[in-house]
């Protein structure tokens, strides 16, 4: 074998603390190495061309590049060697950047370590075999999890491109958080007027199947062919018969149920249609509030329903589907604002969250669009907004900026003035973060035209005095303590990943960060992909973002999914397990440990033997590590290859 070794400088990233020329000189002495050199940027076009030229000039049959992590550029260099006529698996990468140059400053030690890593890579490469992928058919159907604005956009874009789409939404209606908003910044246009038509499009699109009040139960399979189980929760209403007339919601006697859609601003009934524009506009019963389902007596809704749609015996239903790709768009939830006892949220009725205030502003909300104090129903005159409640607070483990609170608070201050012209808004802020198009102008407008008073400082205490709330804070620009007598206090509550996002991440086999946000494939270059092929991200589940960004990411995720599912066949990864039948004793241990059920028992001339189902194997290597005989091996990572690496490292 003739191996070529290329030591990348990565500018000064590697060359700054590694003597690349010395590593190349050492590499030239390794077994089978026919050519070794150092190179400024191996990944750049001249670098790749130099590799190709060297392969041709020195008749190389394998290549080692010592540079950065294989995560980014292994595919790059595999293509490079392929262009020079080699098999893409006749390539090895040694990571001398993340594992060497970036972590130490001792040039001598770094150079030695880099040389050792190159020795390991070359030793493994000597045992590499040419591998060829097999192709398998793709299911041209997309699953979108989450029916907020990001999920809706992804579903519509993919459906318009001709894909079949399954949209799964946990709540009885799609629309997500945006459906709860009264107006949207910076245009102050009606949220439901712009979202409503999109929701109707979802309902009417021939390519979209909507499962509302449903959750993803389990996901198995792999890119191109995921097998998904969807739990359709019992709504106790037959949605085929239900016409959404709403008679049941008028007659239901359980009138003190928590109104989830309206954030608990007012009570609701046990059988509900969340809001007038709900999609699907179907009734559903919340079990814990229903008198019949909890106490056995009532049945009013069944009596009044003109189509006989009520079915108290309904049970959860599991729907199975095969999809080629998945978009996760599960959004966000508010952090628990009640932990800030000094603000009195949950204790004083006139301290409300921004989302509750949004429902109070909305004409379809429980107050009919009139701002009323929850305590006495009086119209407030002095309204205090407290920003960064739960944002930028390391003491509760939420050091990040939620990103949209500055803007929605400015919008709510404008709407307050529009609703109550003689009102005065006070906004306590730390920094105004408004980097979007037209955003900063908007936060100036609320101060200059709408005369909202912006106070730079946090609030330390809210306490009741008579029928007022005293808000004590600081004006750090004046350098004094300030107090406001408020009629209503609105907490601009920060956001966190949706409550059950971690559970979904485990089902989808994607990673999430310490706050529960799903991890993108690369922070800059793969913003909607995940490290699990075929699973994409859209909206706030990847990181908090406002409506325009969520919509953009929804479209981006759809584009990626369309690109994937536009292909009829996909190449399987040939780095999978294989059995050498003459060593296999048919003990079946590999069958037990395989998490993908990719190994089956076959009969070979009366002997039980293991056999790998190539299209199912994911190349995890568990069987390889388990097999007592060494009969089952993982291609590209065989025992001999690993041992060759170990031997290269432990020579003394």
């Amino acid at each position, binding site marked *: 074998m003739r191996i070529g070794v290329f030591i990348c400088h990565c500018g000064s990233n590697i060359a700054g603390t590694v003597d690349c020329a010395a590593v190349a000189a050492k590499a030239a002495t390794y077994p089978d190495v026919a050519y070794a050199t150092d190179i400024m940027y191996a990944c750049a076009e001249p670098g790749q061309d130099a590799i190709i030229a060297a392969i041709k000039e020195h008749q190389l049959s394998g290549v080692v590049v010592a540079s950065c992590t294989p995560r980014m550029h292994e595919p790059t260099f595999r293509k490079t060697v392929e262009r020079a006529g080699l098999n893409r698996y006749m390539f090895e990468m040694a990571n001398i950047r993340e594992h060497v140059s970036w972590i130490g400053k001792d040039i001598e030690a770094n150079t030695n370590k880099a040389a050792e890593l190159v020795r390991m890579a070359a030793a493994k490469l000597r045992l590499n075999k040419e591998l060829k992928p097999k192709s398998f058919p793709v299911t041209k159907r997309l699953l979108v999890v989450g029916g907020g604005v990001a999920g809706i956009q992804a579903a519509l874009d993919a459906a318009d491109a001709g894909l079949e789409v399954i949209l799964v939404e946990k709540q009885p209606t799609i629309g997500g958080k945006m459906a709860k908003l009264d107006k949207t910044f910076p245009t102050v246009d009606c949220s439901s007027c712009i979202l409503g038509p999109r929701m109707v499009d979802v309902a009417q699109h021939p390519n979209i199947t909507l499962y509302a009040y449903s959750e993803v139960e389990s996901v198995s399979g792999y890119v191109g062919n995921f097998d998904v189980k969807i739990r359709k929760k019992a709504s106790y209403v037959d949605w085929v018969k239900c016409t959404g007339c709403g008679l049941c919601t008028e007659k239901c006697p359980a009138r003190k149920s928590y109104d989830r859609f309206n954030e608990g601003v007012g009570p609701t009934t046990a059988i509900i249609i969340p809001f007038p524009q709900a999609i699907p506009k179907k009734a559903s019963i919340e079990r814990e509030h229903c008198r019949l389902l909890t106490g056995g007596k009532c049945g009013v809704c069944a009596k009044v329903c003109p189509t006989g749609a009520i079915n108290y015996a309904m049970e959860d239903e599991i729907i199975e589907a095969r999809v080629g790709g998945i978009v996760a768009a599960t959004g966000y939830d508010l952090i628990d604002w009640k932990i800030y006892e000094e603000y009195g949220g949950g204790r004083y009725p006139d301290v409300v969250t921004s989302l509750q205030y949004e429902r109070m502003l909305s004409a379809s909300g429980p107050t009919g669009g009139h701002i009323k104090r929850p305590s006495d129903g009086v119209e407030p005159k002095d309204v205090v907004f407290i920003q960064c409640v739960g944002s930028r607070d*390391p003491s509760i483990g939420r050091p990040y900026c939620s990103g949209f609170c500055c803007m929605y608070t400015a919008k709510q201050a404008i709407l307050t003035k529009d609703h109550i012209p003689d009102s005065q808004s006070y906004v306590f802020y*730390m920094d105004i973060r408004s980097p979007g198009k037209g955003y900063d102008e908007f936060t100036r407008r609320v101060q200059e035209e709408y005369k909202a008073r912006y106070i730079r400082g946090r*609030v330390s205490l809210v306490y009741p005095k008579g029928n007022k709330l005293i808000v004590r804070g*600081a004006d*750090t620009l004046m350098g004094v*303590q300030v107090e406001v007598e408020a009629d209503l206090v609105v907490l601009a509550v920060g956001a966190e990943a949706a409550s059950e996002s971690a559970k979904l991440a485990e089902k989808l086999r994607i990673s999430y960060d310490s706050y529960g946000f799903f991890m993108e494939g690369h922070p800059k270059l793969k913003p909607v992909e995940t490290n699990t092929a075929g699973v994409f991200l859209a909206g706030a589940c990847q990181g908090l973002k406002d409506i325009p960004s969520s919509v953009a990411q929804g479209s981006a995720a759809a584009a990626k999914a369309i690109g994937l599912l536009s292909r009829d066949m996909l190449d399987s990864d040939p780095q999978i397990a294989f059995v050498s039948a003459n060593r296999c004793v048919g003990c079946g241990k590999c069958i037990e440990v395989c998490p993908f059920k990719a190994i089956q028992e076959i009969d070979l001339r009366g002997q039980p033997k293991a056999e790998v189902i190539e299209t199912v194997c994911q190349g995890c290597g568990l069987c390889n590590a388990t097999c007592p005989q060494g009969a089952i091996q993982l291609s590209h990572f065989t025992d001999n290859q690993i041992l060759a690496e170990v031997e290269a490292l432990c020579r003394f």
Partner: protein
Amino acid sequence: METVCLNKQDNSFTRAVEERSGQVVSRCYQCGNCTAGCPMSFLFDYPVSRIMRLIQAGQKETVLSSKAIWLCAACNTCTQRCPNEIDVSGVMDTCRQMARRENKFGVHAVRAFVNAFIDSVKFNGRSHEVGIMALYMLYTGRFWTDVDLAPKVLPKGKMAILPHRINGRAEVAAIISRYKQGFSDPELVRARLAAAGGQGAGASAGGDKGSRAGHGKEAAS
């Protein structure tokens, strides 16, 4: 107001406050929550959030001469509210210690009270409230301060006219006079230890001084 030249920023003061208080002052992002909740803020010349900023900016003279550090009630509301988990109250305490070592008292009456307290302990081996009051009046020259309260307070028997002295008063007094000679100052302690060859001073000093010297070394390293 004077222009502050940022190139001449005294980082050693910031570091000294951080080392002695064990707090990372650079974590403060000036949200103002400490000032917002401070019950003494109305008396301060600089609100507490500004003291934090002045420390970040190395403004040693301004911080150690301020009234605010002496008027702080150490109620810990600032520490409780700080989103960045800085013990703001502890930082104020550190500033008081540093100011006293430099003989800076932004509020004269506080100095008088502190001296009255220490003198009372020196004489009696423990504090004696009526004595402290008398000394405080003497040091400040405010002879009629709070005297109107005496007819209400004294009959309750909570304050003894005569001090309850303890045994070992001389030893307590020795601790205080050692402190006054500057034994608590890490610099001085180091200098003295060096002069004594590291042996003599340690042997002749009590446990109290030993631990302080140890602390001083730690802080300096």
